[in-house]
């Protein structure tokens, strides 16, 4: 089995607020991330596909297709957007690194036709990232 990773970047704004908590609780739990004016990050996304290389092409998948998929599903959806207001998939969710990574997993997983989605790693900064990884034992297209 071979793993292939493609990296892409996007820049976006967000802030953290849970409407079920009081203003005071929100400030306590989320600290400076609770500033309603928002703040931003240069996100770096690494997407890893696992599979066997096709004997005819020597490739697990066509990286151009993966590049186009990441552009369409992630960059066009999230780049230079406010994640709290402009990304419907994140509506009702606090746009933490964990939640954004999980949404990206959900967007990409059904669209990977060759190989299978193995890992989505989203860096919010060089010192903080979330990983979504395929479960060790699964069913379906895994193998």
């Amino acid at each position, binding site marked *: 089995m071979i793993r292939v990773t493609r990296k892409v970047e996007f820049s976006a704004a967000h802030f953290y607020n849970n409407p079920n908590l009081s203003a005071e609780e929100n400030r306590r739990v989320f600290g400076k991330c609770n500033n309603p004016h928002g703040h931003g990050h240069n996100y770096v996304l690494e997407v890893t596909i696992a599979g066997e290389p096709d004997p005819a092409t020597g490739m697990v998948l066509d990286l151009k297709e993966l590049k186009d998929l990441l552009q369409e599903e992630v960059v066009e959806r999230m780049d230079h957007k406010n994640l709290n207001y402009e990304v419907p998939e994140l509506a009702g*969710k606090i746009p*933490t690194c964990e939640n954004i990574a999980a949404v990206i997993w959900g967007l990409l997983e059904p669209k990977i036709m060759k190989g299978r989605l193995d890992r989505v790693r989203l860096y919010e900064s060089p010192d903080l990232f979330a990983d979504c990884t395929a479960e060790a034992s699964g069913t379906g297209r895994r193998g």
Partner: protein
Amino acid sequence: MKISLTRRYRFAASHRLHSAKLSEEENRRMYGKCNSPYGHGHNYVVEVTMGGLVDASTGMITNLGELDPFVEREVIEAFDYKYLNEDVEEFRTVVPTTENVCREIYRRLEKYPGARLERVRIEETGKNSFEYEGAGA
């Protein structure tokens, strides 16, 4: 699909690789220049990976407002700008290789109440890294 969160921390420390179980000659052969009695140092980078469920009310596996001070107190304050062999109690009897530093940091962070520790990964330099996922892994 499972989710984890990884945070990177840094500390600078000196150490000397020397085993009481080996002779002077064997120590020199085994550890080479790392056996110098004057010690040497590194800028260590520690990656701490936490797993578990994402809390629906915060969207987080763990709140960095809790994790950062915990790691600061348990690891960084104890290791940063220290001579590991003398200043960290555990390394008076255990050789402070980065393998053992991984295990010691794992032991200290395992008791973190806010999430489940999955992995400690240390870059001793930009070229060497070590990972520990606990005794069961």
